[in-house]
């Protein structure tokens, strides 16, 4: 039986060597800039693989792109690592976490040149600690094969004909769900809970996240789902299908703005600034297409397919400070109403 032990030891020693041979697509040995981004940015199908090599070639600065969680996670992570900070730039903090971001004092303001090409309503941070680089609008998406007369407002969704036809997400676990919650607050103010109470019979399920919810939707479980106005772009581009359409409400759609910031403790401030500039200019098109969202830079040329999407008339937003102070309460009230 000793030969088994020997084989074992050999295996344990040899395979790591094999593993390191595997990783042939390594980046340069000492990356100059470490960028934390949300996972779908880093994903093989995200903007990362398109944007980063371009930047490296253009500037000669090598970049280590790190997948560091989504939304709030990014902030948490930087916070937890503050004694051994690694990130230089963080991409993907949503605008509603502005208050927390500022409070953390982990980021340093920087106003890039490109800000002038970005419309006012996207300037969610006057201090420019976080700059917008990507945005979209939440919208209800429907299956045109099953729905001929889509709802045109939040009120329309309360119609009994939509019984068990809507897929939503839980605001406690999904940023899309949170977005819808804020949307109802923006529209109904203090009476938002009534809408939720009334929409309950029309809801098929409240999923844990956008991925699950949208998956159910494409599977045909229900004809309506809360998603983004730009969702149909995917189906047009890759499935050549216009079956799924998004709805722009005349009263407005809730905006979601993603921001990027430079970490205060970073020793590579110069490079970080270059990166931010790049992000807001040359990278915009690739980001928009890969993310299937809108570029913030108005001068960006988008592929034709984006024209097929109805354009949002009115962008709704809520003040970040208000979100920070009342979010707990909203969530509590929401849970209470929806659990009944």
């Amino acid at each position, binding site marked *: 039986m000793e030969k088994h032990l020997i084989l074992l030891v050999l295996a*344990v020693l040899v395979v790591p060597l094999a593993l390191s041979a595997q990783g042939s697509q390594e980046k340069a040995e000492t990356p100059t800039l470490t960028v934390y981004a949300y996972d779908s940015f880093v994903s093989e199908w995200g903007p990362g693989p398109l944007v980063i090599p371009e930047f490296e070639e253009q500037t000669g600065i090598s970049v280590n792109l790190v997948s560091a969680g989504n939304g709030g996670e990014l902030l948490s992570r930087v916070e937890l690592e503050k004694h051994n900070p690694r990130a230089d730039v963080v991409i993907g903090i949503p605008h509603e976490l502005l208050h927390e971001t500022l409070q953390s004092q982990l980021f340093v303001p920087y106003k890039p040149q490109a800000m002038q090409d970005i419309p006012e309503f996207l300037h969610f941070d006057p201090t420019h600690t976080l700059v917008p680089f990507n945005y979209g609008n939440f919208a209800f998406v429907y299956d045109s094969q099953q729905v001929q007369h889509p709802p045109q407002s939040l009120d329309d969704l309360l119609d009994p004909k939509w019984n068990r036809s809507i897929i939503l997400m839980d605001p406690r676990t999904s940023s899309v769900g949170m977005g819808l919650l804020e949307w109802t607050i923006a529209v109904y103010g203090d009476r938002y809970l009534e809408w939720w109470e009334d929409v309950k019979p029309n809801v098929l399920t409240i999923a844990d996240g956008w991925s699950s919810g949208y998956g159910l939707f494409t599977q045909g*479980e229900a004809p309506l789902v809360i998603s983004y106005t730009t969702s149909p772009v995917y189906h047009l581009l890759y499935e050549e299908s216009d079956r799924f359409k998004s709805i722009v409400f005349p009263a407005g759609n809730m905006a979601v703005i993603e921001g990027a910031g430079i970490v205060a403790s970073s020793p590579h401030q110069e490079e970080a600034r270059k990166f931010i500039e790049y992000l807001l200019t040359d990278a915009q098109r690739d980001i928009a297409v890969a993310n299937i969202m809108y570029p913030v830079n108005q001068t960006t040329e988008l592929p034709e397919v984006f024209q097929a999407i109805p354009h949002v008339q009115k962008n709704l937003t809520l003040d970040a400070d208000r979100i920070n102070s009342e979010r707990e309460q909203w969530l509590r009230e929401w849970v209470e109403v929806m659990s009944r």
Partner: protein
Amino acid sequence: MNQKAHTAHMPDIQRDTARFYRTMSAPALVLLTFLFLIPVGIILSKAFITEGGQFSTERLITLIRDPYILRVLRFTVLQASVSTLVSVLIALPGAYLLANFQFRGKSIIRAICTIPFVLPSILVVLGFVIFYGNQGIINTAFVKLFHLSEPPVKILYSFKAVILAHAFYNFPIALGLISSFWEQLPVRYDQAAMVMGARKWTVFRTVTLPRLIPAIISAATLIFLFCFSSFVILLVLGGGPQFTTLEVEIYRRARMTLDIEGAAALSLLSIGFTILLVALHLWSQRLLSHQEEIEQIDERRRGRTPTSPLATISSILYLVLSVIFVLGPLVGIVYRSFQAPVSRSQEMVFSFVWYRQLFGFDRAIGSPLGIAASALVTSIVIAAIATVISLFVGTLLAARLRSKEAGKGASIELYAMLPMAVSSVVIGLGYYLISSTVSHSTMVSRTLIVLAHTVIASPFVLRSILPEYRKIPRSYTQAALTLGATVPQTFSSIDLPLLRPALATGGAFAFALSMGEINATLILSDSSVVTVPIIMYRLIGSYNYAGACALGTILILCCAIVFATIERVRRSSSHA
């Protein structure tokens, strides 16, 4: 005449044995401490920090007093209990069949048992929906067959659906653990009872069932812990926040409202509960472990082919139903992976396009070629190494615990089982801490991931091996010693070969867990190491569900092959 001077030099075989296993199992405990206890401990300690940075139990107390939280806790326990009960009940008949009968396809069924673990829960949910949903396979079949106007099966988005999904995920564990334990039970007690006039059901109820209890409790505890921290399944298939579990609230605080202190506090509450459960489980194991020893082999039950028509029919029925039940969602995933819409008409036709994209034969959304292949290799290599190491770790820990008197080994057992009792969200936070303190060369990342997987898998391996280990009679080891074997030699020439079936079961678990693990892999490697679950997760995140299903299918196939091989190992050593 007093010869006390001698005692200091006396060779003490028991002390030597204990020392050998203590040394050998020390690395395991060190691993556990650094990869789990310390980082998670630091995160959890945040529960005691107030806004101002002072130490206080205030947060925890407010939480415990909160009626909402208590309600959520109650529900969490309720759904976990019901799920566990259902899973075990469904598994028992299957365990009976597997343990007592010999028939073809047994190894296939065993192999299928661990597949659910491999898949990320989101894919499981998707598979469920594809199979049981309103537009799902079952409903479409019924509607077509019986010309119905409405889909008849409407279980989704309810408590029932949650239990069903949990049972799908978990009853294979119960099946695996209970049937392998059952196989080893000697028949003579059953025979004694029958001779005394008991009929089969009575024999089962009064003789077999009590002796199965260690295995049942073992499986039940594992299942309960899973369902306790279930998350995706609950929200999606349950239908709404009335089915909130503690895990949801922890996730909310950790990820959405950035209240790490709150998440830590809630996690402590949750852990308090799960630790109690784990302790209860360990205590019951200890109590009942004195029962069996590996008996004279001819007393073990031999597989027999079912004779009476009733037995044959019911076993076939059970097999078919359970295969459908377990395979159903898997079938759903496989089915979806082969469906692609024909452009314009939107008809779904059979197509390999998603597979081609994955392996780089077709260009897809700007993707590099051959992602899936390389991710698969990475996953398998990591899983293989992690399996080997966790088998080692688990066996050595079991060896150490086996020779302990009651009570002394309990803290170590608890220690080893802890990773299962903590929410994966919190463990993730702990990983952030680890990640921030280490340098990020590829070697370090990969090593960390393998080690993290080992920590996660070890409780399962331990659970599989320890009961079997306790059954090996001490006289075997003693005989080997008198024949000239040193303690390490008895371990390698006697213990290990006899443990082969248990090692196979434990190894299968470890492999599956590693293949399906995403939390540690993502965080500890900054995703420079790309495994299959990560790719699936990314595909789903970029609208490409069919691609994810295709990858899921490959994963299932891959695991099925590995498990079938392991089954073969297990059978060849069961001296049948």
